[in-house]
């Protein structure tokens, strides 16, 4: 054998391993390109993610601040008596306020001309606010009281860049001369940005008052909805999973259920909205835009998610546990409820939280059952009323704001999204922690 190879030496190599020929170079270049495509794809995805979050935070942050005017104001008893004796009482109060404000500006050596109309454009009806305060707290008369008055949404817009001097047209809402006053007040550090609790705790306002709109009532609506979802879909989902995983015989009925569940998981959410509208509102006459109806629809939507994750965690419990339980004389039901279910509980909980988070952000079905366009002006009065009284929900409220013509509501919509995402993030983090802490590998 060796001789043969000696006799016929291999033909001299045309190519060397040390020197890449054209074909190899081409193939290596193709390899590099292919790798680069993958990198680019991932980076593009991450780029989109970054852009999304940057634009949410940049546009949403202003919703959490509002422009306020801080004025320390002293009302003497004489001034009050004089004002109360006049025909236009609130006008008298606002004249006093204007005088005080002018005094403050003059102290700092600035003089800006402004009248009552300008103050009303900037701060709304100041006189009424002041009078109401002194009527409520008569003891404050004669003492210096610090007032924090919210500036109008146009002034707010001037601070946040929605309104500027070039594009501003004089109207009954704001005039160019008012901006001079705002600038002067800013220099005197009377007007400034403050954290807006109204946005977090308040209810929705009408279309003409973007400044007063808050998401608090919608958060409460969402909370009641999630309560319904939790109470309905967790027990039903777990029961259904236990049946399918532990008891169901192999027959057509079981197949039918299985096919149904996997299909329901992929049905577009708007179809569930149609179901809710037709069955719960048209047929059963449940109250429109009530969190109860929203919760029912979202429960049906969440069920497949919970069933799928519960089945996975039931499946993860090793059969030896069941066998051991059966071996010491437990019935099948006892084995499942006393041993398998507690061991699967962390997984079930994690799946439930993720399902709830999904339901919390779902909007489309809520549009159809009338939770949109509804102005949630206040909190529900009482626990039972929370379910049946019309209310909004967080995503529906965001949609309502986005659909309004006034651009200052957009900022509120972005702000609402920050709050919604904060809730989702918290829920997901809890789910991850639960999984990390309690997950058992068998």
């Amino acid at each position, binding site marked *: 054998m060796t001789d043969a190879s000696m006799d016929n030496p291999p033909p001299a190599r045309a190519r060397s391993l040390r020197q890449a020929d054209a074909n190899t170079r081409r*193939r290596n270049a*193709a*390899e590099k390109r*292919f*790798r680069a*495509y*993958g990198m*680019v*794809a*991932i980076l593009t*995805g*991450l780029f*989109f*993610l970054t*852009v*999304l979050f940057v*634009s*949410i935070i940049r546009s949403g942050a202003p919703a959490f601040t509002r422009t306020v005017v801080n004025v320390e104001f002293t009302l003497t008893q004489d001034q009050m008596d004089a004002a109360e004796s006049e025909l236009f009482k609130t006008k008298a109060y606002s004249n006093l306020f204007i005088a005080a404000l002018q005094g403050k500006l003059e102290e700092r050596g600035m003089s800006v001309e402004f009248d009552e109309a300008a103050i009303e454009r900037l701060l709304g009806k100041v006189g009424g606010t002041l009078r109401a305060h002194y009527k409520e707290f008569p003891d404050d008369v004669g003492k210096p009281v610090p007032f924090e008055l919210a500036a109008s949404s146009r002034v707010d817009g001037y601070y946040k860049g929605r309104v500027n001097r070039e594009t501003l047209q004089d109207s009954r809402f704001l005039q160019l001369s008012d901006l001079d006053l705002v600038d002067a007040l800013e220099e005197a550090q009377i007007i400034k940005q403050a954290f807006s609790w109204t946005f977090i705790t308040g209810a929705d306002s009408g279309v003409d008052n973007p400044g007063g709109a808050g998401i608090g009532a919608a958060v409460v609506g969402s909370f009641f909805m999630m309560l319904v979802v939790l109470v309905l879909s967790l*027990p039903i*989902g777990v029961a*259904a999973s236990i*049946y*399918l995983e532990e*008891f169901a015989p192999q027959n057509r009925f079981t197949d039918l*259920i299985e096919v*149904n*569940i996997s*299909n*329901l998981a*992929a*049905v*577009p*959410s*708007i*179809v569930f909205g*149609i179901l809710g509208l*037709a*069955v719960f509102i*048209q047929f*059963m006459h449940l109250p429109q835009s009530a969190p109860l109806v929203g919760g029912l629809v979202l429960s049906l939507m969440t*069920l*497949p998610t919970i*069933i799928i994750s519960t089945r996975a965690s039931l499946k993860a419990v090793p059969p030896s546990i069941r066998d051991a339980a059966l071996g010491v004389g437990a*019935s099948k*039901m006892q084995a499942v409820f006393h041993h398998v279910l507690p061991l699967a509980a962390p997984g079930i909980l994690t799946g439930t939280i993720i399902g709830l*988070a999904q339901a919390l*952000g779902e*909007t*489309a079905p809520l*549009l159809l059952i009338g939770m949109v366009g509804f102005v949630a002006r206040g909190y529900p009065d009482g626990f*039972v009323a929370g379910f049946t009284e019309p209310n909004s929900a967080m995503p529906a409220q*965001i949609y309502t704001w*986005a*659909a309004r013509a006034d651009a200052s509501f*957009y900022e509120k*919509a972005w702000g609402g*999204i920050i709050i*919604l995402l904060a809730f*989702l993030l918290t829920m*997901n983090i809890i789910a991850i922690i639960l999984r990390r802490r309690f997950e058992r590998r068998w």
Partner: protein
Amino acid sequence: MPLFWLILIVLVIAAVGYMLGRSRALANAGGDSRELHSLPSYYGWNVALKAMVPTFVLLIVWLLVQPLYVNSVISGMIPANVIDDGSSRGLVMAEVRRAANGLDNAVAQGVMDEEFARNARADFTDVSQVLKDAGQIVTTEVTQPVLRAAQRYRIVNATGYQIMSIVAVVLALAGTLFALRETRALFRARNVVELGIHALLVGAASIAVLTTVGILLSLVFNTWEFFKLYPASDFFFGLNWAPSFSGRGGSSDLGVLPLLWGTFYISIVALAVAVPIGLFAAIYLSEYASPRIRSIAKPLLEILAGIPTIVYGLFALLTVGPLLLKVFGNEGLGWMQAGTAVMTAGLVMGIMLIPFVSSLSDDIINAVPQAMRDGSYGLGATQSETIRQVVIPAALPGIVGAILLAASRAIGETMIVVLGAGAAARLSLNPFEAMTTVTAKIVSQLTGDADFASPEALVAFALGMTLFVLTLCLNIIALYIVRKYREQYE
């Protein structure tokens, strides 16, 4: 809320029954639980279940049936001459229900006494004014027949609920007594309770089937109503979508084709964004990336899937739309008129679908056996050649399934198109024009103030049916492909 209290009462009866059943069984066995057939708690549960389950089933059925019954009784009371032209019995019934509700609330507020609410006559006193004063919504003048029907409605309803409460409590007590009577030491309580729980489990599992049945029924019935008012051929083959807003019908063009075109066009744009990015991301993550990069990049990409669609909708409307307008609008290339367009919605939807495609493809590529790769390397192929010529062809059916699932997502997506795609239905090829989709029109037809019985509102159900059938087909095909492929390598 009486229902709340009723449920509480039944629960209390059940709890008492549990205690009684348990102690009765123990007493029967002379206090020695070893003499019992089952554990003592099973005797308690037997009583509690027999008190609760029939009662709650009865409550649910009653609550479903009573409104139907009351409706049919009351609507038979309304004389035909009250129903004006252009109105319908259903509308008058809605009026009656509103008036009855108003009366209820007014009584609850103390503005009206029960006597007045029951016997007031619209021809003598101005009931609508009284209701308005009480802050109730009254759309039109409450006429005497409507008021009479409303009063009757209240009475029938109230009596119905009274009977229901009594029957429920009696049933709960009867169940308790029956179960207590059969409680003896040798009674097979565990077997009975487990049978009951088994039945409850089957019931819970059937809810999925019930949901599907509910969806199908609500779609089919209303679609049928729609096709009685509007010819089916015009709906399926009409090239024009122009609903009239009068709610009278007749003058509306309700062709589905422009909407389907918009839906498909937007989905195609979305898939054109999501499929290349998602697929290459999946390939990189499963074949090239080090475990470290994988553990960071994969969850980050999957965040995109967890963001609610309303966020994407707002992103399309307020960020992407204006951005595209700056580039392609009149100041730039001049192709685009407004921020809402096929391109806007498609691009944002594509971003949403990236993780969908990438996660599913990732799983599928990972499922390709390592032996196939090793064989390819052994023949001298580079890694990318292996991927292109061995891994991808092997994973292709699964990837197609993943893409089909993503397509079904895109077709059913609502919020992004409602906010980002515009409202005009047109058949056009320009991706920078505003178009609309099936889902967006379902929303706009059902949230407007068209009358529920008009073709303009009912068309939404026909659209929903179209959507449901489309996505169902896509899902079934996709699931079939994915499942078949999985079996191949396991």
